């Protein structure tokens, strides 16, 4: 049965990218335990609006854990306390009456704050742009069953492809590294037969673009713990291996001796 909770929130408010931020404290009374975390914030926003205060800016779209838009640091954890769960899928039944919850934006140098809890994550798109594709113009594709793909390879590629691009891995990392995201994107394609032709070029370009924006990975593993899709850490090792190989391979492909 649904119960109600009285919660206290400490929320990061920041008027714009270049403004100074601060924590504000708000009451969230009578919150039903069946509500989602973001519905709780909707209610707080309605109350703020009612009292003449500007609502808190926070982002979400699908509210089903697949679009990767929602992105809150909840009590210091990217996407909050529940494992394998995006912020939008967290429900208030995980909390108790009287709890205080601290809500901050994802913090990373490459994710500048736009306002309150909303940040700009377009650096992730830049990594994809550098090589996260298989170059096949529309119409140029052979029959889909021409190349059988072993189920194991396909399943592994899928585990990587499940990444929703939320950036929690970056926010959770002490170095703000984007290794887990980048590896997921690279290995999705590197593991498939269709992705082989561009494998080395892709790896080098994406890793180096990543390094332009993000910190270096020192194998803490915090990224995996925060990841709502539990993207496997192994992908990082495979990417490191592919990256080292790519240096030689790409030189060879360009006609120079390794």
């Amino acid at each position, binding site marked *: 049965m649904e119960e109600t909770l009285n919660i206290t929130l400490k929320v990061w408010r920041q008027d714009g990218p270049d403004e100074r931020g601060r924590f504000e404290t708000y009451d969230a009374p009578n919150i039903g335990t069946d509500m989602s975390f973001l519905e709780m914030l909707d209610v707080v926003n309605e109350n703020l609006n009612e009292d003449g205060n500007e609502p808190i800016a926070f982002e979400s*779209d699908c509210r089903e854990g697949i679009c990767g838009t929602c992105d809150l640091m909840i009590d210091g954890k990217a996407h909050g306390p529940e494992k394998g769960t995006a912020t939008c899928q967290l429900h208030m039944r995980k909390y108790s009456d009287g709890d205080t919850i601290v809500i901050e934006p994802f913090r990373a140098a490459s994710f500048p704050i736009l306002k309150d809890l909303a940040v700009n994550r377009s650096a992730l798109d830049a990594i994809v742009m550098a090589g996260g594709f298989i170059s096949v113009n529309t119409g140029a594709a052979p029959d889909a069953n021409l190349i059988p793909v072993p189920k194991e390879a396909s399943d592994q590629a899928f585990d990587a492809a499940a990444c929703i691009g939320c950036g929690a891995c970056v926010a959770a990392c002490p170095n703000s590294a984007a290794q887990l995201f980048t590896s997921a994107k690279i290995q*999705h394609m590197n593991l498939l037969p269709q992705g082989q032709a561009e494998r080395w070029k892709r790896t080098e370009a994406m890793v180096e673009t990543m390094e332009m924006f993000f910190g270096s990975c020192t194998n803490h593993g915090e990224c995996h713990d925060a990841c709502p899709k539990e993207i496997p850490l192994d992908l990082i090792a495979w990417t490191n291996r592919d990256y080292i190989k790519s240096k030689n391979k790409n030189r060879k492909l360009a006609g120079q001796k390794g």
Partner: protein
Amino acid sequence: MSLKVGELNSNLPQGATDNIAEAWTNHKFDMKLVNPANKRKFDVIVVGTGLAGSSAAATMAELGYNVKVFTYNDSPRRAHSIAAQGGINGAKNYQNDGDSVHRLFYDTVKGGDFRSREANVHRLAEVSVDIIDQATAQGVPFARDYGGLLDNRSFGGAQVSRTFYARGQTGQQLLLGAYSALMRQVGAGTVELHTRTEMLDLVVHDGAARGIVVRDLVTGEVTSHSAHAVVLATGGYGNVYYLSTNAMMCNVTAAWRAHRRGALFANPCYTQIHPTCIPSSDEFQSKLTLMSESLRNDGRIWVPDAFEESRSAADVPESDRDYYLERKYPAFGNLVPRDVASRNAKTVVDQGKGVGPMKNGVYLDFADAIGRLGEDSIREKYGNLFDMYERITGEDPYKQPMRIYPATHYTMGGLWVDYELQSNVPGLFCVGEANFSDHGANRLGASALMQGLADGYFVLPYTIGNYLADQLGDAPMNSNDAAFGAVEAEVQDRTNRWLATNGTKSVDYYHRELGKLVWNYIGMERDENGLEKAISEIPALKAEYYKNVRVLGSGESLNQSLEKAGRVADFFELAELKARDALAREESCGGHFRVEHQDAEGEADRDDENFQHVAAWEWTGEDNVQNRHKEELEFNYVKPSKRSYK
């Protein structure tokens, strides 16, 4: 050039009535081409980066056009298409079970309850096979069998297995494919990408679409962009109901603004209500979550016989349960089409037999299937859906039945387009869920992804050339022209008015109230009385909204209430049109059920004599009732028959 209102020329291909299998091929041959070297002389605007927009933009850029892409999302990959779960149809016949282009064509026309254009649907079925090839080559990890070949399943009651799927995330995987193709072009400099940018108006000048006016959602800056053609790929309008399975930001504004500039809006009353969603838990429910339709393959739907049943599901003996679908439709049982399943759920809940704390659901029970196949086998098939259900409701569906209730899911209506996907405004094209084209009065499962990608990869990139070819040598209009300036000023005024209203209630409050009216009067069942009420109550609520909404903050920084204020204003106008369309359509067909038009057994009564047409509405000014135009439909290949699932 003038707007093609009145004549409503659907521009059907040669052979549409007597040689449909060759019609698209012939039409491709008949269309004018733009030669490869000239393509870079043309600018095309694409609004929207879902499956339809991303695929269209990437393909046109590959062909050589200069493409400018706009989306309000912060990344193209976050468009609403990402959420599709179930799958995508393709007439590959890999399962050797008798599928063919003709059968997919036939099923889609019939499934649409004979309210779609045969030629369009045939083309859709033809290119469906190319979509599967294209997506696979891009690295979309469709499910495979142990031999490494692609797997299929039967979906939504289809008699053949033609649905390709990627775990429960077919939409995400297909969109990642289209998005990767798009980002490749962004990197190549052929696509200019504008994220967090919302189209707020269309500029029509000298009888053709010349560009758009947009607002930067971060800085509030309003700017103009011109091009030789404008493509809207802006999705459906299901959020007019407030609660739906659509993403929070889905809205009708782009299509509606084009409508107000002259584009006809077709069949707004056709809405698909999906039978298996999680019922809402309280007043602050922000959206509804779909539970995949595949669950109906193994779950049995029932309600208690008694009106005020207080026992928990497990304690209600078989003799006190009503498996109402199995009882009424012995042949199809729990697998009846979406509209039939939805309406029957509403009937039992309205009778007071609903289950759950708010008495607003029916049971979907897996106890039998678990008994028959074992819990492990059910876990393997539906594990992530069961987990999702438990996360949301806190109830364990292995131990107690799921509770489900219908929710708005998809909108078949949209901007009217001809066979070439061009609206009646020359130079304005519309693809994906935003147009009305292929699904008639009801869409089959796994066919929206197919249509979006068909439009974007394989139809629009050809047909747009037929329009552009005549403009070779013409520069696009200058976006500093006074025609753009005037629209910019209107957009700025509209934005400012919300900030200046200073009322007492939030945008969401009014959206919720509107949603209740639309759901109650223009929901699963409509009648004259209710529709008349909608037509008087919606404008009254709208008037209050304009006087009493409160939007705080400024127009010069990210302001989500301000963004929503304009979208909800457009929903009000659409809602009224929806009611008028439903009232004018004096028949029941597909997703449109008029209580007055049912047979003795309570099934939909279609009226082919009077309503075998598309209704396309023309905006006639702020305070006028819109004009209803008709496009008559002809069926030469699939003879209209009554749908029966008994």
